[in-house]
């Protein structure tokens, strides 16, 4: 089934699903988009719910409908939902903003702004990424600072000055008090907020190459497994507990990889999107059905896959991403967009729904992702 495209006449930098309340078993229906490169940028909320009567025979081909939007100062560099009603954005002006969404999704308003959270003395320092774990928010920027906020406090909680001498491109929470950042000289740095010092708890980097890394995501169940992507379009899977080399290097894209996401409930699936205009859905399968694998064939090239099984792994459930025996595990990739577009800047996946945005001013929504 092909995704539905909607042209919204602004280049899209970020798309995010609104979280669904776990109590109600709903399909994700509402998503947010942020624009960039316009004279006035906007954060918009869209809905792909079933409008009116849904015909079980026909495809759900409703286009996303705009519910509400708000003006945004500067490019939207990152967007994250703090909870059901609040949205945090990172701006190219260096500001971090919290937007409040009315329960009926009829309006989006500014709740709080940390102006110039990231700054240079004589210039604007874009805030490049933001990550939330309610009520805490962490932002990183081109000025090399890592900043911790609490959503309800107006003052910033903590600033790690000079966390990095190069630009930090992305950040993710590893544990409640630990974050992992990636920068433009190819390093992953772990920061522990419980520690007083301003130096990273751990630094990992790719020896032999200093490829700028643009995105990072943590495995939802196993916190030591992290996926990153960077300028060369390769997908790296790391085990942060050990070593300086990534566990797997996979040739994924022919240009910068902008986002990588593990599927939140089914982590054997991974999604990546890139400047080359493609969105790939990666699936690892452990052993079993060889016939289906042979039918579907190889779609990717696994460059290296460590053959050494992990030491100290005592649980019988070994993650498919790190399992040593490559003959038992396969990695497949499928293109999710029907044809090549301009750069796919962002993607988000929740349950069976995928949304992504491109520089071709189009949003694609896929509501039956095979996970």
């Amino acid at each position, binding site marked *: 089934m092909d995704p539905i495209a909607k042209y919204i006449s602004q280049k899209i930098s970020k798309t995010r699903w609104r979280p669904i309340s776990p109590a109600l078993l709903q399909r994700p229906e509402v998503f947010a988009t942020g624009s960039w490169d316009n004279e006035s940028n906007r954060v918009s909320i869209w809905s792909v719910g079933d409008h009116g009567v849904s015909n079980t025979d026909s495809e759900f081909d409703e286009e996303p409908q705009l519910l509400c939007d708000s003006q945004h100062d500067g490019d939207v560099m990152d967007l994250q939902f703090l909870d059901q009603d609040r949205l945090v954005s990172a701006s190219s002006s260096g500001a971090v903003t919290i937007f409040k969404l009315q329960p009926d999704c009829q309006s989006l308003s500014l709740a709080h702004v940390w102006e110039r959270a990231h700054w240079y003395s004589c210039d604007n320092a874009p805030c490049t990424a933001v990550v939330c774990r309610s009520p805490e928010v962490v932002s990183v920027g081109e000025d090399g600072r890592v900043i911790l906020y609490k959503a309800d406090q107006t003052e910033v909680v903590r600033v790690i000055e000079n966390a*990095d*001498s*190069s630009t930090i491109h992305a950040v993710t929470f590893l544990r409640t008090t630990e974050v992992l950042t990636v*920068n433009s000289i190819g390093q992953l740095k772990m920061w522990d907020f419980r520690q007083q010092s301003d130096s990273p708890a751990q630094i990992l980097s790719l020896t032999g190459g*200093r490829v700028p890394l643009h995105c990072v995501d943590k495995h939802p169940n196993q916190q030591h497994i992290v996926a990153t992507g960077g300028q060369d379009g390769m997908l790296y899977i790391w085990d942060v507990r050990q070593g300086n080399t990534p566990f797997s290097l996979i040739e994924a894209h022919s240009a910068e990889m902008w986002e990588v996401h593990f599927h939140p409930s089914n982590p054997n699936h991974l999604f990546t999107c890139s*400047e080359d205009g493609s969105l790939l859905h990666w699936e690892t399968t452990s052993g079993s059905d060889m016939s289906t694998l042979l039918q579907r064939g190889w779609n990717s090239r696994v460059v290296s896959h460590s053959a050494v099984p992990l030491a100290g792994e005592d649980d019988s459930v070994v993650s498919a991403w790190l399992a040593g025996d490559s003959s038992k595990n396969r990695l497949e990739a499928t293109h999710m967009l029907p044809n090549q577009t301009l750069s796919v800047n962002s993607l988000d996946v929740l349950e069976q729904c995928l949304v992504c945005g491109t520089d071709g001013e189009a949003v694609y929504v896929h509501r039956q992702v095979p996970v």
Partner: protein
Amino acid sequence: MEEVDVEPSPMVIADLNSFIYRHLGFEWGPGDLLVYETNYKLQGPRTAGSPLVHVVRKDEDICSPILLLVPDSNYRSVIRACMEELQHNVSILLAIELIWNLCEVLFIDAAPAGSLLLHLLDWVRLHKSDVDARAREVLQSESPAQHQSYWDVVRRTLILQGRMDEARQVLSKQASLRAESSSVFKRMDVLLQTMPIFNPTGTQTLTEFDVKWRHWHEECDRCLQDNTFASNRHLETIVKILVGDEDTILEQKELLSTWYHFLVTRLLFTHPTIKPPDLHYYAQSSMNMFLGPRAPPEPLDIILLSAFEFDLHQVIKDCSIALNNWWFVAHLTDLLDHCKLLQSHNLHFGSNLREFLVLEYASGLFTHHSLWQLAVDYFDHCPEFGRVYLELQIERIPLDTERKAIKVLRICEDRQMSEQVRSICKIMAKRALRNNRLGSALSWSIRAKDAAFATLISERFLQDYCNKGSFTDLDLLDNLGPAMLLSDRLTFLGKYREFHRLYGENRFSEAAKLLLSLMTAKIAPRGLWMTLLTDALPLLEQKEVIFSVDQTYELMSCLEELNSGTKDSNTTDQEEDIESTKTELLRLALARNLAMAIVKEGTIET
């Protein structure tokens, strides 16, 4: 691409249900078709138009449309602007559409005699759409025949546009009303029904059609002479029109509203087999008759006239002057060029007309804050100068964020524009340096493989070290990797930092070896030798002998080499004193070390 001389098969464009109440406007582009909503509404609520221009790209092999979207900033401003601006821009768009379609009919489809008129009729119908609204209004009223615009509708719409069947339908309402004149109406009905329409796909030849048409024409004339319709002045007018009486047709000026409508109607009822070369004669005379002697022709009229005269270059020229918008001209020319209809009109600076116009249009796009990515595509399609233009323009895109710079760089790298890559990276590196982001600056220099800048950054680091006594940004220096080899100074920096690290880890002999190699391999800049030698002091002062005899001799020679150099005349006495004290200390330490080393190496371990 050969000239298209068959009717293209209709393509269904999906997903355009919002177009139900609006006319579909379309424009040809280079290989694409731009489809947009015009503000022409047939009926229905006045909803805001969607500010979209759809691009339908014809796939070469399969001819199935693939929908992309290209937003046109001009069109966007139309929707959002205030009323006056809205009116103004819409009229330009309508004019553009009119010219486009005419060019399509005349040049692209290149319809021969017979179908030419049919196409012109279609063209006129497309641009006079309010007719349908009126017709519907009349038909849906309670008593259509009594409706005040009834005869207007019959005449204007239907007859003047050659839509005979619909005219008959409307007329039948009148006929049912008046029983006594029903025979007259029946007569009219027959006349209208029997009007021959040329069928291009049929087996009838043009000559046969002509014969048939003449017969019909004579029949109409006979009715006129017989005063068959004298009882009803409306019907009388209609039959006069059918006969092709120019004065009568001219009387319908209000309903026709434009001279080209008059032209087409006139041709419909006098020369339906008009041949393309003869068109311009009728066009000129129609215009004169319609507009009258005193009214000067508008720019639009001139353009249309040039089109009727099949003077392509004149059309393009006039369009360029009249419309302040390169989009139309660029796309039209490109399309005509693809159809090989445009002989390359070589301009003085070498590129042909089509390329020139596309370049102009794309350059205009480049200045737009977000459409520059599109412009790149256009430049790619200009074989001669596209690359040069792109090279010049791409460096001028304002780069507010690193992410945008990365995208621009990707465009350059894909096209092997290494000069531009270097220049953009240098801009980013300089900006980073100004903001004291040494790591970023180095990262950009490495990407550009810019050795000179890398040297500059290393100097900066070393300066910081000399001033503060310690290194900043250790995370960067410790992880330089192979990038270290980009520049000598950078290599030195990396190795020097490594020396400090080794020292910190108490790996003295390795540190010593490294330090020495830095000087002997001449990686270290001369100015820093003193610093390096001073760094060697603690190693010399250790209880254990670290430097071997040979190494000590080398250090000594380095020291002497340093001192044999010409003294800098700018140094003050105080500085000279410090220098000489340092040298003394070093000499002493080296001598002591040498003594111990000789002893150590000379001793046989028992």
